[in-house]
């Protein structure tokens, strides 16, 4: 046993005062009597002579000395670790991610969240470590945050831990650990304690890399079913949407339940699901809602973790694409015919054919087109956003450089399963010649020549997608083949669907939302409304330099942005498999041993046990004295 506050031993001098006070207390008053023998006969020999009778008067003093000893030892804060415990600088990282909201059953029938258990663990950790330790507390939410700077006051740490609020999104423990390591620089005997449910193995990995890290596992249960992905894609041909959902069963047993889909609060579909333990279930479900809306999918089952039982998706209204064809007047015929044949996809009335001069003069007025096709021409200035198809020529800022010409290349499709290649058979297409192109690595080659030179390739950016054909269509027999309208159709369908929205349709909890492209200059603020929560919350964020930052994404649900006259939606979701898989990682070594926590006396920390014992002894002393057992 080691005293962490040995200065408390000076308080042993209180024992001398106790002895002095006790001697004063038991000092007997003199009383003269006429015949002492008379009294002795009355008292009997037992009271005076018995060894026990003589000794029991000192029992009270012994009790008081024991009480003083207990109090001195309690103030000295003893640790029962055989002298191995030394003061350390300890950074406590508390994981407050969504999985820490898992309800853990307890013996008393009352469930507690893992975060509450983590807060208790911090209390236990601080109370069973030397008082000379230095502490720092970090919250490992989406971003690590120091909740309590370096302090030796354990109460400050415990209070800060108790004030941790749950973060309903994913957590990344690595930045928190990196921050802790940075803050521990120069500290003697550094130590990092990760209080977490493991974060899908991240905690164990981090502690394995850093020998000064100790993983304090929280929780036991694994009973959970969660939606880890919900995406929606518009089907313009069918004027509908397809919702893709992926559900993970994190528990060990088989689960039969159902997923309910609600569109703007009305149930549109119910899908029964049956998942084996540790398995996942996925399905694409058609949603017939061309008008769009907010889709909510939720699992009709109560489990340990609630936040991942629902997910949201935004259904954009399905509308026909507006296509602008920029081509010399004599070279637009085949394209116009092919586009006119795609009434289900293309808004023929809104689509136009321009010459490149007309296009350049119109400038940004055509930026609103869903797709712009340049045939054998290129604009003076390529817009930063939008979807474009360049045939046989493209601007210099397209990262594909001409390096030569190929004569009579044979074309073959590279990725048969790519949406652009759907139903397209280019094997028999004859090309008079084609340009040899050097592509950046991120380009997707859709078709190439026999010597591997790309003939059709796709360059995608977040705000801009460009499909390039490195040959002149009119110098081939492609317009006479079925492949031509099919390729155009696939292009319109794919690129328009992938068109850059103003805001992302999905984001994770605690992510910041920024517009995907620059907003018009006349927009100075964007109004928002958080929906699907207990109380809808609305407000506005300012727009500066054509962009804004929205960070009120702490809860799952859709948020509507009003940008000018338009409204756009973003769905905020947890949808993280790492959070859904709630089974905690197992610590390699019990954290109590790794941290050399002091042993327990009577099931609690020694100083508390000693204080309680001292109190009990005071009661015993009082009882024995007033019942005259020790007087």
């Amino acid at each position: 046993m080691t005293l962490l506050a040995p200065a408390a031993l000076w308080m042993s001098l209180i024992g001398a005062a106790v002895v002095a006070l006790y001697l004063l207390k038991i000092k007997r008053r003199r009383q003269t009597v006429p015949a002492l023998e008379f009294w002795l006969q009355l008292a009997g020999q037992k009271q005076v002579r018995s060894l026990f009778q003589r000794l029991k008067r000192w029992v009270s003093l012994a009790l008081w000395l024991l009480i003083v000893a207990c109090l001195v030892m309690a103030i000295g804060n003893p640790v029962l670790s055989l002298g191995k415990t030394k003061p350390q600088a300890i950074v406590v990282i508390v994981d407050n991610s969504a999985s820490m909201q898992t309800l853990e059953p307890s013996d008393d029938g009352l469930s507690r969240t893992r975060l509450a258990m983590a807060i208790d663990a911090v209390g236990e950790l601080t109370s069973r470590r030397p008082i000379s330790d230095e502490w720092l507390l970090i919250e490992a939410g989406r971003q690590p945050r120091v909740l309590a700077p370096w302090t030796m006051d354990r109460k400050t740490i415990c209070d800060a831990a108790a004030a941790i609020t749950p973060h309903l999104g994913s957590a990344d423990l690595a930045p928190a650990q990196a921050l802790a390591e940075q803050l521990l620089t120069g500290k003697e005997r550094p130590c990092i304690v990760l209080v977490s449910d493991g974060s899908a193995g991240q905690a164990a990995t981090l502690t394995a890399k850093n020998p000064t890290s100790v993983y304090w596992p929280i929780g036991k249960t694994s009973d959970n079913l969660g939606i880890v992905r919900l995406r929606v894609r518009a089907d313009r041909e069918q004027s509908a949407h397809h919702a893709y959902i992926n559900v993970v069963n994190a528990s060990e047993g088989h689960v039969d339940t159902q997923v309910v889909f609600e569109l703007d609060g009305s149930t549109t579909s119910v899908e029964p699901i049956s998942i084996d333990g540790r398995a996942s279930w996925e399905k694409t479900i058609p949603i017939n809602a061309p008008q769009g809306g907010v889709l909510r999918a939720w699992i009709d089952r109560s489990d340990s973790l609630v936040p991942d039982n629902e997910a949201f998706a935004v259904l954009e209204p399905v509308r026909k694409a507006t296509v602008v064809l920029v081509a010399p007047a004599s070279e637009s015929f085949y394209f116009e015919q092919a586009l006119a044949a795609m009434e289900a996809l293309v808004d023929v009335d809104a689509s136009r054919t321009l010459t490149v001069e007309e296009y350049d003069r119109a400038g940004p007025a055509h930026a609103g087109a869903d797709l712009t096709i340049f045939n054998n021409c290129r604009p003076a200035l390529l817009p930063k956003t939008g979807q474009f198809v360049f045939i046989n020529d493209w601007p210099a800022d397209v990262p594909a450089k001409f390096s030569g010409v190929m004569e009579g290349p044979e074309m073959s499709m590279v990725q048969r399963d790519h949406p652009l290649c759907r139903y397209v058979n280019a094997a028999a297409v004859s090309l008079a010649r084609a340009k040899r192109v050097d592509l950046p690595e991120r380009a997707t080659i859709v078709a190439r020549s026999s010597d591997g030179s790309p003939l059709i390739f796709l360059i995608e950016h977040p705000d801009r997608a460009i499909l390039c054909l490195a040959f002149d269509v009119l110098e081939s027999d492609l317009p006479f083949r079925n492949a031509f309208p099919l390729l155009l159709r696939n292009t319109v369908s794919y690129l328009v669907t992938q068109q850059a929205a103003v805001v992302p349709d999905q984001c994770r909890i605690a992510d910041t939302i920024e517009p995907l492209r620059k907003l018009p200059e006349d927009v100075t603020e964007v109004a928002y409304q958080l929906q699907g929560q207990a109380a809808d919350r609305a407000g506005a964020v300012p727009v500066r330099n054509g962009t804004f930052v929205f960070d009120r994404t702490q809860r799952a649900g859709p948020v509507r942005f009003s940008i000018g006259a338009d409204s756009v939606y973003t769905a905020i979701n947890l949808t993280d498999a790492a959070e859904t898989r709630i089974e905690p990682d197992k610590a390699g070594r019990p954290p109590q041993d790794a941290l050399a926590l002091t042993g327990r006396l009577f099931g609690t920390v020694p100083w508390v046990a000693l204080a309680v014992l001292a109190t009990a002894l005071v009661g015993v002393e009082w009882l024995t004295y007033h019942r005259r057992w020790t007087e």
Partner: protein
Amino acid sequence: MPQELFDKDFLKKLEYLDLIARRLVFGRQQALRPSDRKGASIEFKDFREYSPGDDPRTVDWSVYARLGELVIKLFRQEEELDLWVLLDTSGSMDFGEPNKFDYARRVAAALAYIGMSNMDSASVVPFTTEPERGRPGLRGRGKIFPLLDYLSDLRCGGTTELASMAKAFSRRVRRPGLVVLVSDFYGLSGACRALDQLRFFKHQIYVIQVAAPWEIDPPIRGELRLVDCETNSHEDLTITDSMLKRYRGAFERFSSELRSYGMRYSIGYAQARTEVPFDEFLLRVLQRGGLVA
């Protein structure tokens, strides 16, 4: 004359007690009390054959005339009553409030005064383990002041040995008298032996047990070091309510046994509680009788 112990008020009470005593006790008798011994009084007691040396004046000639035998007449002897007041001066008597010794001295003085005023011989003998000389053979009221001075100068101390005191007293005083023993009588076995010793020497005995209120109901409790006022020996005791209860019972038994012992052997007994004025006590004793049989 010390004002505190024997003041004018005390003397007035003595006069009053003397008058009461004359009416209650001595008014029925002569100052000289008949004894069983044969003597020279005028009261006939018996006849005896004449022996050479007998006083011829005692020969009953009428009997000689009828029977022709010389017989002499015997007469009952009249003698004085000796009052012996044995006063305990051991350390245990200097105790209590009112003080037992002061009380005992007043009682002794009063008894001696009553005895002196009735032409008896009154003696006051202090004692501890042995009887002191005291003031023996006091006669006449005029002797009261030297007696009071003597009693005022008495001091307590030492231990009591009643048995040895009685043995020594018997050796010194052969003629039976009225012995009034004023003491607290702690050590009952020794007291009984002392009374036996006096009884065997044909003394009339009257015991006065002096007890202070403290002794009857001690107002003490708790952790105490009890110190014997005679020997200065001490013992640490815890006085509890139950022990006090036992003490009161034991003291009552102690007094009862002393009284019972006296009744068995025609020994007068009175308990003098010091909170009762001594004149009231003596008046009650005189009214009850037994002090002078």
